[in-house]
């Protein structure tokens, strides 16, 4: 009878997960001060059941403090932490049932893999048999059966991390918190572990919050990403939303390379010098004559040798090729834009840009990237004059 029930249950088609009416983890209006310095200001977000949220920010942005506040290792100055509807703000860490995977993994050095994983159950005074069974299940889940009697120092970084995860899963945590989970690993291992963790999380269906400063990691790991800057959330959304529609200049430049150009709102469109760029603008946000910034990714730049641009592309201006470099998967071209005509928004007639590439900080130019086929079919020379168009862009208010 029991077996049959189980069978039926296993064959049930999993219902599409609706937006949970009750979120797994909520942070409500949290702020934090250390002495007189405010490190977090009014942080609020929800994590749904089974969801992975990435807190992305530079070091010192306060992202680790958010994690520590959820875990109960730090007290917020104001605000609440709610886990599955239960407010835990006043509870000590040990009563929260949160799983933290520390950057250093924090495995207990004098305990074997087995003992580490069983620790949560041992201190909960569970029966020996139950502990053994749970540990066995988890060892299978994280594929460390043959390492069960080893000490943490005998394991690789990736294996240690899996032990750390299994150790928290043993007591069925409300949420998993990963503090810079791949910080100490090399690039190859990182990529592999990212995939492994995603798979694992899908299997166990526990909500997770990741902390990272690595934008690539954030985009790959997160169902949603929250970009943290100086103690506040700049934007929260799916990786696609955040990458294609950055809400602020910070988000635009922090997530990948971005070109920024100043323009004016004119006749329900944009004007860059004398060039008109058609754009659908929110009339409330962007008033006629307002200064704005056009943000576009290097891969959204189209370089044409003729005046002709394809439909759907917005012609910017002519430009001179300043530098061409080959960066593995694509070609990177630095272009000096020739702006025809001056508008009142250009701060000193220089074209502003910010990207994550070091050489572009001081030059008045934009960066374009071209995939290999395009690069080899239309070869460019340094000093050549071309026409530049952009295929997609975001408009942000100018500061």
């Amino acid at each position, binding site marked *: 009878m029991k077996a049959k029930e189980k069978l039926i249950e296993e064959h049930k088609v999993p219902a599409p997960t609706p937006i949970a009416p009750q979120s797994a983890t909520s942070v409500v209006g949290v702020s934090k001060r250390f002495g007189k310095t405010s490190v977090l200001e009014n942080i609020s977000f929800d994590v749904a059941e089974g969801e992975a949220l990435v807190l992305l920010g530079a070091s010192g942005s306060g992202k680790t403090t958010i994690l520590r506040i959820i875990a109960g290792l730090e007290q917020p100055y104001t605000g609440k932490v709610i886990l599955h509807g239960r407010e835990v703000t006043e509870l000590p860490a040990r009563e929260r049932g949160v799983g933290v995977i520390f950057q250093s993994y*924090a495995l207990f050095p004098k*305990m074997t893999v087995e003992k580490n994983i069983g620790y949560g159950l041992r*201190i909960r005074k569970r029966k020996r048999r139950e502990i053994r069974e749970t540990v066995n299940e988890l060892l299978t889940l994280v594929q460390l059966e043959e390492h069960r009697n080893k000490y943490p120092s005998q394991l690789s970084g990736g294996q240690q991390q899996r032990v750390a995860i299994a150790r928290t899963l043993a007591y069925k945590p409300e949420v998993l918190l990963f503090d810079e989970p791949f910080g100490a690993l090399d690039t190859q291992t990182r990529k592999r572990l990212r995939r492994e963790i995603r798979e694992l999380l899908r299997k166990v269906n526990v909500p997770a919050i990741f902390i990272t400063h690595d934008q690539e990691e954030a985009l790959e790991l997160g169902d949603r990403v929250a970009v943290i800057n100086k103690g506040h959330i700049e934007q929260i959304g799916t990786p696609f939303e955040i990458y294609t529609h950055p809400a602020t200049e910070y988000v635009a430049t922090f997530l990948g390379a971005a070109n920024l150009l100043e323009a004016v709102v004119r006749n329900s469109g944009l004007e860059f010098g004398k060039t008109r760029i058609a754009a659908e603008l929110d009339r409330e946000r962007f008033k006629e004559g307002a200064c704005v910034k056009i943000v576009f990714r290097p891969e959204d730049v189209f370089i044409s040798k003729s005046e002709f641009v394809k439909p759907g592309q917005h012609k910017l201006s002519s430009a001179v090729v300043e530098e061409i470099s080959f960066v593995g998967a694509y070609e990177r071209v630095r272009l000096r834009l020739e702006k025809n005509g001056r508008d009142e928004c250009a701060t000193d007639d220089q074209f502003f840009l910010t990207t994550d590439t070091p050489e572009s900080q001081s030059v008045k130019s934009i960066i374009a990237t071209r995939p290999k086929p395009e690069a080899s079919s239309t070869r460019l020379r340094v000093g050549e004059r071309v026409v530049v168009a952009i295929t997609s862009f975001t408009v942000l208010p100018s500061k």
Partner: protein
Amino acid sequence: MRHVRGFDVVRPLSIGMLVFMMMPLVFLPLASIFIFGTSNGLDKFWAALTAPEAVFALKLSMATSFWATMFNVLFGLFAAYVLSRYNFWGRNALIVTISLPTAIPTAVAGFALLLLWGPYGTLGRFLAPQGIQVMFTAGAIILANIFVTFPLAFGVIKPVFDTMSRSLEEASATIGATRWQTFWYVTLPSLRGAIVSGALLTFARAVGEFGSTILVSGNLAGHTQTAPLYIFAKFNEGQIEAANAIAIVLALFSFLIFSVLFFARDWLDVD
């Protein structure tokens, strides 16, 4: 100096010089204990060793050192925990005070204890009328041992506490452990090596203590005479063999302790 290819003359020369310098300073004095002690035959050596007063002196030394070690390890553990976990006003002053007894001459330490606990001492004068006599007992020897070995265990344990990653304890807390469970299951095992070596150091030092012990114990043979005091007393009486037998035991004992410390380092430091 001429240089032969692949042969550095300075190497054997400096090693030889080192050994030569250590000869009269360390090796020969130690060797002479064994040479003299056994020169009259092993029977006499054995007889000197098993003399009731000698056996008593060795036992007393072991017992008093044991209790002093127990106390100082527990205290050192506690002090190291408090002083590395909490930052407070006067913290450095406390650290210096704990470490101070090493710098105080042992005779001064013994004298200080006499001035406090002696029959006319600051505290002793109130205890004497109650019939409580602290000085000139085994208890006095333990007090003296505690005083002179006070910072040893602390000094070994504290650095381990300081370098111990806080995230281990935080991890234990988030997993659901109480402070006590965390201390017992996580912190203490990491301190195992430091505790063992701290205890051995303290014990070795306490067993050999002379300066303070001779002042506070009363040096009563068969009652409050420890092994080092016995050596001194027998030497004064001209019974060189009796003194020598115990000297051999004490020397061997310290070899043993330091071998353990040296060879067990790997085990003690296992991470």
